[in-house]
């Protein structure tokens, strides 16, 4: 299958770019970022606040399988309907510093669009850590599964 989502992360830089083509008109793609009920569905999170305007802010809350709540929040710096959102993103109560996100929405045809998400981190090391986080979590999950299976065997 073709890989629709691409990650570009250059050597020794503190940023990365995520790009993705959608079989959706750009207006619908943009809507998925500004309608709280829709954000909740695809991000798998609860939206506590989502102000789509310059100097507005947002706050999301997710609950992990153990029932722990994690909050994510940020401030909107630029907001141009169907084109652009520039915002900060931070995972509350974690050692990870705030990151800056430049989201650009682009019309390709009437029915297709492109999203480019440029993320700037505080340092190269923090970028690499964020990049490796899902890998580490995957390892942990696999490890937990093994533990579960092993404990059932006892």
């Amino acid at each position, binding site marked *: 299958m073709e*890989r*629709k989502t691409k990650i570009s992360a250059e050597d020794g830089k503190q940023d990365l770019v995520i790009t993705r083509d*959608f079989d*959706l008109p750009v207006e619908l793609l943009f809507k998925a970022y500004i309608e709280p009920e*829709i954000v909740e*569905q695809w991000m798998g999170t609860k939206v506590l606040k989502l102000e789509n305007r310059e100097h507005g802010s947002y706050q999301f809350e997710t609950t992990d399988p153990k029932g722990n709540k994690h909050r994510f929040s940020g401030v909107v710096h630029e907001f141009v309907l169907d084109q652009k959102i520039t915002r900060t993103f931070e995972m509350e109560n974690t050692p990870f510093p705030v990151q800056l996100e430049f989201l650009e929405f682009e019309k390709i045809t009437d029915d297709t669009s492109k999203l480019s998400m440029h993320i700037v981190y505080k340092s190269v090391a923090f970028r690499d850590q964020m990049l*490796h986080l899902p890998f580490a979590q995957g390892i942990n999950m696999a490890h937990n599964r093994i533990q579960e299976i092993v404990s059932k065997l006892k």
Partner: protein
Amino acid sequence: MNLRRDVFQAIADPTRRAILLLVATQSMTAGAIAANFDTARPTVSKHLQILTECELLEQEQNGREVYYHINAKKMKEVAEFIEPFRQLWDDRFNKLEAIMKNYKSKK
């Protein structure tokens, strides 16, 4: 963990990725590899050194020449390494696309 990061940074560089592609199909000497790039020979040597240190490339002595070839096992490991991050976003965006397609047809 350090080694991991080094490997990751090794493949993040465009020239080094080009080198990996070059030697993916055949073993080549440093000179033959360098002939494919406009960059200075010492720069290419430095790239080869980094790739070898990260075990993405392996050296093989053949008479007086040293040939470089790809370490397929390590390459696979690295590809899997960044893959979960890409997968995470791909899953989210697939969901977004499905939801919005549905949203469109309901309207």
